[in-house]
């Protein structure tokens, strides 16, 4: 029973949703579900927060290697939560001074925006910036002319890399007009519009079918591994 009921919930919910997209009256069902989902996800944050706290409290109580870092995580988590949920130091919106919590956490100079500007932004955007290093090391290692596939991969990347900077203009800009199609910047656009479009279209069509089949496997109750234990 513990698995049959959820399965039927999924089946009924799924088919109802499929139907709703064809019935003008129920067209907004998808949007309503988005709202419902966002709310459920926001409520479920309690579970995530619980898991986070539990991991680090256990590390602390066991004095595992690096438990000091758990103090940092827990402390920063609780302080940020406290400041944000209570809107510490946020004055009300001048348009609605009577509503105590009408101000936005993002007001300049607030503790919240300090956290955002001096902690979240540098930490996350530097993490993002690490990619510049990784594209270089990946290109060095992986772009080698081992076979036809690899040659196509690396030559295309090469054309686009050069075509997207001033170097492309310098290298091939002198090509006469009748051969302007072979200028690197034009070549890279041509590659985008023909080969890239073809590849992406096929991938998209494949994905659509894959999504449909995956969805139908769930809705027909064939694939129950998401409920756990495929064959059971």
């Amino acid at each position: 029973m513990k698995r049959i009921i959820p399965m039927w919930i999924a089946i009924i919910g799924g088919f109802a949703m499929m139907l709703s997209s064809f019935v003008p009256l129920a067209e907004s069902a998808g949007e309503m579900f988005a709202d419902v989902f966002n709310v459920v996800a926001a409520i479920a944050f309690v579970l995530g927060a619980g898991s986070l706290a539990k991991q680090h409290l256990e590390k602390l109580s066991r004095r595992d290697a690096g438990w000091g870092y758990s103090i940092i995580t827990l402390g920063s988590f609780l302080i940020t939560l406290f400041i944000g949920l209570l809107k510490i130091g946020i004055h009300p919106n001048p348009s609605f001074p009577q509503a105590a919590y009408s101000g936005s956490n993002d007001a300049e100079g607030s503790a919240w925006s300090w956290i955002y500007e001096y902690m979240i932004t540098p930490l996350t955007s530097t993490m993002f910036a690490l990619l510049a290093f990784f594209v270089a090391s990946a290109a060095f290692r992986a772009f080698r002319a081992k076979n036809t596939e690899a040659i196509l991969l690396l030559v295309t990347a090469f054309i686009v890399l050069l075509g997207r900077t001033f170097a492309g203009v310098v290298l091939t800009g002198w090509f006469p007009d009748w051969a302007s199609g072979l200028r690197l910047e034009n070549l890279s656009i041509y590659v985008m519009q023909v080969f890239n479009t073809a590849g992406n279209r096929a991938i998209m069509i494949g994905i659509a079918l894959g999504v449909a089949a995956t969805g139908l496997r769930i809705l027909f109750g064939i694939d129950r591994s998401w409920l756990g234990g495929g064959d059971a």
Partner: protein
Amino acid sequence: MSGGNVNSTNASARPWFERLDRVDRRWIFLLMFLAVSGPILWIGVTGKTLPEAPTLAARAVFQEINQLPARSLVLISFDYDPASAGELQPMATSLVRQCAAKNLRMVFIALWPLGSQVAQQTIQDVIRDDYPALKEGDDFVNMGYQAGNEAVMKLLLTDFAKAFPKDSRGEATSNIPILKDVKMVSQFPLLISVSAGYPGSKEWVQYVISAYNEKMNFVTGCTGVSAPQLYPYFPQQIAGLLGAIKGAAEYESMVNESLAVDGVATAPKYLQAQRRMGPQLVAHLLMVGLIIVGNVIFFARKRRGAA
């Protein structure tokens, strides 16, 4: 995380290409850092930028905005957050600047939670600093962020005020002069999205533009990573496309040229993208060099293996 190949015992016994192949990848990281920071320092000190030759897609963006009559409504969606600001902020700045200079009425929205803040910052930097005559509510308004991704777009098709019930100041939509007659999104002749991913340009095309292809024009600026997915839509659904910092630099140079006043140097904040093309060039050349070296190693080894 070391390169994993730091063992240097009997390294001298190996041929040169083996050693080069097993080079600690941290040397590559260092080269990349120098390739980016060197030009930044150089351009920062000398103030010189590289010339740009605008491509078709970037020229189209400029043209779409330029052809609108004054006081036209423009919907500008900030679908990115500070993490992508390095690439997209120069586009947003130049787009807002061209709209402000053309005296278009701008409505800012955000489908990314942090997009509203970025929009506010752009308004501050461009409109309040350089076009102080424009009044919030009459000439532009920031409607803030709405959760719901495509759902918001679909709602915009039928009911603007329901999708964005209040602006970022908390004013109800019905009280905002600029939006007084706006019922739905098709009343905007031009939609601009500065987009870093989902939801963004692709969803705008799928849910809004394909519904109103005749009435609405759509131009977009996007990150390098999403540009390949958008090229198939250009120029049918997407009238103009700025791809990555290169597109930003091309467009920026066009806007600067059109608004240039003799004898007055362009404010440095309007040269962001062109400044950033310097490190791009050197870093791209480094990447090209790395790929060449990688293949030289590969072929040298192959020949040795065959011999």
